[in-house]
């Protein structure tokens, strides 16, 4: 009856039908905002989900080979700093003092290392290795006068329509 073959075809169809996909738009380039897109992309890829990331505006420099990400200390009243053995809120105005941003960034990077949190470079490499599709926004590239040669290998250039084509077929679409 050829049932065996039919079952196989059904199984294949089911597998393809079950393949989930996700897109993420990364729009911000500070150290803290760089984490969610890369954590979610790499984890989803590990869970057999097809992932597309679109990097635009301040998210685009996250694709530069050399990263020196800084913490955004201004306008972030929720940020607590470890001081005098506890975590204290830092008044926003302190963030404008020269050296505070780099100091807070150094403290955060130190803490991340201590707590076994991956670096953005590590997560980005994991994303590339797990075949996450990475699209760099062409318009932002022109606007910021950035050079694709300064960026990591394996990315493609595209615009809003390239993203939408991917998003319209995806199960999850995130804007970060």
């Amino acid at each position, binding site marked *: 009856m050829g049932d065996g073959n039919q079952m196989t075809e059904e199984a294949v169809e089911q597998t393809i039908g079950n393949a989930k996909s996700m897109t993420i738009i990364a729009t911000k380039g500070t150290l803290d905002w760089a984490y969610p897109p890369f954590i979610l992309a790499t*984890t989803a890829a590990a869970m057999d989900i097809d992932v597309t990331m679109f990097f635009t505006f301040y998210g685009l420099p996250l694709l530069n080979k050399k990263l020196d990400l800084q913490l955004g200390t201004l306008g972030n009243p929720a940020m607590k700093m470890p001081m005098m053995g506890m975590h204290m809120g830092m008044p926003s105005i302190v963030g404008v003092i020269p050296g505070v941003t780099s100091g807070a960034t150094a403290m955060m990077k130190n803490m991340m290392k201590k707590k076994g949190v991956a670096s953005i470079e590590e997560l980005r490499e994991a994303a590339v290795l*797990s075949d996450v599709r990475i699209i760099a926004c062409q318009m932002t590239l022109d606007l910021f006068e950035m050079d694709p040669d300064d960026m990591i290998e394996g990315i493609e250039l595209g615009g809003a329509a390239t993203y939408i084509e991917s998003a319209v077929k995806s199960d999850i679409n995130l804007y970060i």
Partner: protein
Amino acid sequence: MADATLDAKGLNCPLPILKAKKALKDLKVGETLEILATDPGAIKDFEAFCRTTGNELVESGEEGEVYRFVIKRAA
């Protein structure tokens, strides 16, 4: 005994999951991976990972301050 062991102690989210996925790829279907972790979030995360990927969570437990998971690789 599991076929392979992954020491993910001291690593934080999402590294235990990413490393487990990588280690599972090196196993044959039906073989098992033991994972040792200290991230308390790993308990729920490995459950969710297995439910989504179809890999089987054979064991999940705590030994002192270390969480231990055994995952059997599915297709």
